[in-house]
């Protein structure tokens, strides 16, 4: 049994191939959460059913993205599936897991000083911006994709880097710990805007390139009746349209929350001054 999925230069077949590392990590994530719940329950701290569902959903998406068949197709045959994995690892797994953890659990998780200081460093907006986009750009450089995807260690490193960049990104947006002084809504919207711009770079290369960018997918055995260029353009659309829609969607949610928050604050101010203008 392999630790992680890497590129295999052979014809696709539908033989089920589990990956030990994926099952181990998914299992550990669930055990850690259950242990956290038990620890909290003894102290009168609880997780809601919605939080539990969200966390388990995040782990399930991680498992789907990293295990057979999605990972096997993405590593060896289709760039579009590789990009779908990126979207799942970055835009689905981290927010579901962060939503799933109540603040007391996150505080407990970040109780150790070295971990907390590391987390604080990556929670700085500029560091987060550079980390998220740096990982995005570097992990899509042809030499990196062609070189790392062929080994289990390389493939594992890239997938973990994606998940990490997702947590760094979503921490800014979801701001789960108020005492960590999260960015103001306006700042968060600008943060999203900057990320929207950077994702355009790899997507543009994929869309406008006349020839396949990655030798791994160009020279792979055919899969799904797609030409390499069609597959590459679908990958670009997944990154740009799906990724872009998610970012724009989050932007809209943040904007309305900002608006609602200001509305509530405005009502309070006006009530205190004895001149309520909103009814």
């Amino acid at each position: 049994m392999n630790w992680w999925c890497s590129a295999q230069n052979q014809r696709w077949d539908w033989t089920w191939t589990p990956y030990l590392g994926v099952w181990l990590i998914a299992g550990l994530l669930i055990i850690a959460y259950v242990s956290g719940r038990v620890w909290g329950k003894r102290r009168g701290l609880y997780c809601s059913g919605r939080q539990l569902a969200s966390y388990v959903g995040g782990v399930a998406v991680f498992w789907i993205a990293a295990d057979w068949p999605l990972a096997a197709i993405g590593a060896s045959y289709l760039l579009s599936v590789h990009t779908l994995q990126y979207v799942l690892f970055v835009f689905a797994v981290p927010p579901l897991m962060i939503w799933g953890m109540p603040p007391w659990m996150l505080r407990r998780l970040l109780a150790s000083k070295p971990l907390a200081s590391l987390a604080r460093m990556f929670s700085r907006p500029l560091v987060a911006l550079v980390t998220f986009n740096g990982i995005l750009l570097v992990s899509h450089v042809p030499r990196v994709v062609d070189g790392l995807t062929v080994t289990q260690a390389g493939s594992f490193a890239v997938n973990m880097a994606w998940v990490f960049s997702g947590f760094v990104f979503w921490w800014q947006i979801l701001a789960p710990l108020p005492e960590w002084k999260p960015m103001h809504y306006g700042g968060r919207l600008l943060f999203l805007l900057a990320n929207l711009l950077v994702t355009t770079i790899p997507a543009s290369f994929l869309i406008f390139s006349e020839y396949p960018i990655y030798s791994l997918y160009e020279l792979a055995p055919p899969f799904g009746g797609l030409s390499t260029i069609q597959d590459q353009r679908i990958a670009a659309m997944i990154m740009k349209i799906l990724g872009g829609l998610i970012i724009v969607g989050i932007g809209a949610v943040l904007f309305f929350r900002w608006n609602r928050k200001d509305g509530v604050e405005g009502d309070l101010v006006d009530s205190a001054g004895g001149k309520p203008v909103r009814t």
Partner: protein
Amino acid sequence: MTTGPTREMAKVLTAGLFGLTSVLVSCGSGGARRPGDLRGVELPVALDKVDFVLQDTEGKGFDFRSETEGYLTLLFFGYTNCPDVCPVHMAGIASVLRNMESSVASRVKVVMVTVDPDRDTPRRLREWLDNFDTSFIGLRGDLSHVREIMNALNMAPPAVDSSQGTNYLVGHPSQVIVYTTDNRAHLVYPHGTRQRDWAHDIPMLVDATWDS
């Protein structure tokens, strides 16, 4: 502390900037003819064009030497059930020729000789090649005859892996032999040749002149 109107203004500006960027982002967006400049693998000794007649997919005799005279000719030995090398080569070459100026592409002939004539009927061969390019030429003949041709080109003969019943694989050379208009092959292109390599070399090769 920001005032109410300033806050409203900031919100409107941020929303406007965000929306505008989203829209912009979603919309945005001769050389030498010496062998040394080419990306194929140069043969130590150029091969003369082989002289053979095989059956094409219409069932007619195809005289390889005379039919390809004056064309840049890409000769490949493969089979339609091939899981990897053959479709990758054919798809790559077809894609490059599609993107090429017709003045260049029209001077190129792609010929595939099947090493699996039992399963590659003329119809099957034609249908398979049409997936890539309808101008590709498919040839078939007795396996013994195909072996002789390959032998003349110093190529290893096809090897059938009969352990898999009717769903067998056939071992075959993975390189494409390229004959220039002097009726000689100076270069071969192994499996792993990328589309950008073909796109780089083909325009040079159609006009190539070689020192004898």
